[in-house]
């Protein structure tokens, strides 16, 4: 059996295990064992992948396999990974693993919660290993639907509204996506659904002109493309901790990944036609998200708008269409996934104690919960791009790459996007100064306790990942850069 199928099989077995579990400890046992196994598998895959590459394997995708599923429409279950998918799988595995610990004490309906959580993970892993458009789309939907229940049932605040809004907007995106996928399928001659084969066909320019925006928008909604980002603040604010982590950390990356792998790779002419239009939108996202974050008062809103800004940078870098900028985009996905997950985990832990996320009501937490506060400062510094943490590596790669486009339009967009590093510092330090420093004004908060062991474990894992990527970026950078190459050469053939 193909090794990649394990990424889907393990979550499915976990679902079975969870369904049969009779006690809380069994549920936890299944989750830890399963997500731990996935993490080991992802690390093993990364090592094996680099090994094969350095041994001279020069196919575009490794570990490929294909099983016909529905012959009349050429739908296959085809899998394969390149450097981009490998790092995304690694990211997903880390987030699922730490997310398990971040929801260690979640109540009520713990078993049901983890069932949906695992189903969501199945979709995510399946998406990243697929090379078949239909299979990819199916896993994409599998990842989206559980979100509705996870927010609607276990969320807080206006959870029904947020869950509905998020689901409807993302479903709206999926509708475009489905149309786009069918457009690609028929445009490429209706012979195959496999990305690696479609790319060899030449889709007519007119088809690309129509279907590129459909696919890009469809994925872009999930990647928080302005002006289709408003599901993100409400959705994140209402979602339970681990769901926010998984959503901002991994699910939003499905958007960027899809835009790159499906929209831009398969329809390079479409990308050339529409690139500048979408580039303006993403530039707006980057700055607009950052400015919006400056005045928010809810911790999760701040982080959600910050995600709009940072995910905007992902799409921005992809649309710059140079090898370096695209590498930066993938690094930014990785980095943003890790640090946002860390942020949401910490916000959830703070909220679990203080029962408020309003920064006007929080102060002096450094003295009360030093561990969580230090974690928060580290997450903040990573977010504002401090060297040595992951954000810096990604942002610099993006900016250096974007600067290779020397015409005035691209240059202007790049300079505007770079200003976000200042605004990011403003909103991050504002929050840190407000809630962590100073003296605690609320006597109720003085009785609160610092992180428990499970929370510490989750935070430490993520901090290590963020610092690891920030201190030794060369591995991720070179693996990604090599895999970005075929896609970029496809784009620059025009």
């Amino acid at each position, binding site marked *: 059996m193909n090794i990649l199928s394990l990424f889907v099989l393990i979550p499915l077995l976990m679902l079975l295990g969870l369904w049969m579990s009779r006690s809380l400890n069994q549920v936890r046992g299944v989750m830890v064992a399963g997500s731990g196994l996935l993490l080991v598998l992802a690390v093993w895959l990364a090592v094996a992948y680099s090994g094969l590459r350095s041994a001279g394997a020069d196919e575009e995708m490794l570990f490929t396999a294909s099983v016909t599923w529905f012959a009349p429409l050429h739908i296959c279950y085809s899998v394969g990974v390149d450097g981009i998918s490998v790092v995304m799988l690694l990211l997903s595995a880390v987030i699922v693993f730490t997310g398990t610990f971040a929801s260690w004490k979640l109540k009520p309906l713990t078993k049901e919660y983890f069932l949906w959580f695992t189903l969501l993970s199945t979709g995510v892993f399946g998406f990243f290993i697929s090379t078949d458009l239909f299979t990819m789309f199916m896993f994409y939907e599998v990842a989206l639907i559980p979100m509705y229940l996870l927010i609607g049932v276990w969320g807080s605040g206006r959870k029904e509204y947020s869950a509905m*809004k998020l689901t*409807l*907007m993302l479903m709206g995106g999926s509708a475009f996506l489905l149309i786009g996928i069918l457009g690609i399928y028929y445009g490429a001659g209706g012979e195959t659904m496999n990305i690696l084969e479609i790319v060899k066909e030449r889709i007519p320019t007119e088809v690309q002109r129509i279907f590129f925006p459909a696919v890009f928008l469809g994925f872009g909604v999930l990647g928080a493309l302005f*002006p289709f980002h*408003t*599901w993100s603040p409400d959705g994140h604010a209402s979602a339970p901790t681990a769901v926010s982590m998984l959503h901002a950390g991994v699910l939003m990356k499905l958007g960027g990944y899809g835009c790159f792998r499906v929209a831009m790779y398969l329809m390079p002419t479409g990308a050339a036609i529409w690139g500048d239009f979408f580039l303006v939108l993403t530039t707006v996202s980057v700055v*607009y998200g950052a*400015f*919006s974050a*400056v*005045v*928010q008062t809810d911790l999760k809103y701040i982080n959600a708008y910050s995600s709009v800004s940072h995910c905007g940078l992902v799409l921005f870098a992809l649309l710059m269409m140079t*090898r*370096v900028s695209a*590498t930066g985009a993938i690094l930014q996905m990785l980095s943003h996934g890790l640090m946002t997950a860390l942020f949401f985990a910490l916000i959830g832990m703070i909220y679990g104690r203080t029962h408020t996320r309003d920064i006007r009501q929080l102060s*002096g937490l*450094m*003295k009360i919960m030093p561990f969580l506060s230090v974690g928060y400062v580290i997450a903040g*510094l990573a977010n*504002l*791009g*401090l*060297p*040595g943490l992951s954000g*810096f*590596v990604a942002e*610099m*790669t993006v*900016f*250096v*790459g974007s*600067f*290779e486009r*020397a015409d005035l339009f691209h240059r202007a967009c*790049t*300079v505007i996007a*770079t*200003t976000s*590093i*200042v605004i990011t*510092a*403003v909103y991050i*330090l*504002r929050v840190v*100064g407000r809630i*962590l*420093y*100073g*003296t605690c004004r609320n006597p109720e908060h003085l009785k609160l306790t610092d992180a428990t062991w499970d929370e510490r474990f989750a935070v430490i894992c993520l901090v290590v990942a963020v610092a690891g990527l920030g201190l030794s*970026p*060369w591995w991720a*950078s*070179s693996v990604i*850069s090599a895999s970005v190459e075929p896609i970029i050469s496809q784009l620059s053939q025009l």
Partner: protein
Amino acid sequence: MDYTILILALPALSFLLLALAGMKMSHRVAGIVGTLSLAAVTVLSYATACSYFTAGRMEDGLYPTLVPWNFEWLPFTPSLHIDMGILLDPISVLMLVVVSTVSLMVHIYSFGYMKGEKGFQRYYAFLSLFTFAMLGLVVATNIFQMYVFWELVGVSSYLLIGFYYTKPEAIAASKKAFIVTRFADLGFLIGILIYGYYMQTFTFTPSEERLMQAGMVLPWALGLMFVGGAGKSAMFPLHIWLPDAMEGPTPVSALIHAATMVVAGVYLVARMFPLYVDFAPHVLHAVAWVGAFTALYAASVACVQSDIKRVLAFSTISQIGFMMVALGVCTDADPHGGGLGYMAGMFHLFTHAMFKALLFLGAGCIIHAVHSNEMEMMGGLRRYMPVTHITFLVACLAIAGIPPFSGFFSKDEILTACFGFSPAMGWIMTAIAGMTAFYMFRLYYGIFWGKENRELHARHTPHESPLAMTFPLVFLALVTVGAGFIPFGRFVSANGHAYDIHLDWGVAGTSIVVALAAIALATWMYARDRQPVADMLAARFSRLHRAAYRRFYMDEAWLFVTKRVIFRCVSVPVAWFDRHVIDQFMNFLAWGTNAAGESLQPVQNGRIQAYTWWFLSGIIVLTAVLLLF
């Protein structure tokens, strides 16, 4: 030279150790770990300097540029990549000595100053982090490595200014420092990106061919880099963060905000100097005028401040202005031609680091003794604190430019270079040097002479500080006395060739006379118990006095820009727009779908008559359509 890696590795390790395990250590152990690692770094830095300078020059008369370590940290393209490494040349070796010396002194001093403070371990961890970052900055092999460590010194400065994180002023000051310098760093970053794109390298020595093709691009890149340097080095109008940064512990002010980090901008200009002088002379002269204006502005503000650390902060800004002027007035790389300023600027950087650190550490002792920063609470302290008094006086004489103290020699070279550039610049800088002497002696008399604050002394008699604090004072005072006699030009000069310093007695004589006159004026005005002249002047020119005291309202201007313009005119409307326009549109779509459903609902009413009616009308319409077309 393989051991140079330890110069970076030791502080990094001690930071990690203190950050991870510091809370488990006692104060004493944490302090010893930090100080010992720094002591080792200092020894290694001195060893590096000795072996580097004694190894002699190469055949072309230059000191070699050594790169004992370099590895590719983050690859972008085959030609563009961020490397991490160590580069040794005269100025980086000089900076190694400066940074490690001051840092070691501050480590020792802090044992006494921070004794019993909560978070002692955290303090030493941050000091180690800062030292690591600063050393990494000075030995950078390429401009991007410099930027990486540039950001790291920025964040360690942020953490140390906000060390007393329960104090609102400290929180605000740390935030301000970080954001203002980040704003300047944006310029730096864009400068680097332009430089990298057009030169196709991040190293300091692009290929001739690229340089020739660059045209107007290179001046732009260098100008933007200077914006970054101006932010870190507190050049007007980006200086506003530095006076507030004095909220941090005083030893931190001595290390970061007087001796090392704030001169990073000067170091940056010096590092890129060959490019500036050959390809962007106009930018270099702009640097000179910015420096001169800053020096003047800061000196005039320093004359009326009452908080002793603020006086020293403005004095620092003013002195960095001198260094920038020195670099900026160069018109050529030949020190005999128009390149004297380069050597003078670096020399002043070196001497200033020593005597300004001394002044701040002395101020720390005084604050320690009277528990206040305000000059009103001081006066007559010379009887109680003899060591502090003498060392402080030495530093004041040095900064005022009185021979044979070190400041005299470096400042004299700067003035000579200025006169060589243009007489106007020469006279302006001489006048500012006079103001320097005046405000420093105003400070000196205010602290050590004048009326004693008996009320305060009755409650708590001031006393001399412990040995851990006085030792660094004495050490730095000795350096300050002797450093002027170092034949600096033999080691550092604009084109790398040895240059013997000659005193130009015309310039030197003038500056000595001006300085002595200013000291005499300060003595007349401030040495007595009462200060009728000063009070009279303050009353007579009350508006000017108040404006200078409020730093000519620069902070208010900045506050206006950030609070009113950025916050209220951009962020608030953007956030409102997001919630009320974009989001409402999405809600409207949902509502529209709902409403459409609602309005069609009556059709499905379950009555057979109605269905039959629709059915028949449908048939009629369809038949009509088919028949007609």
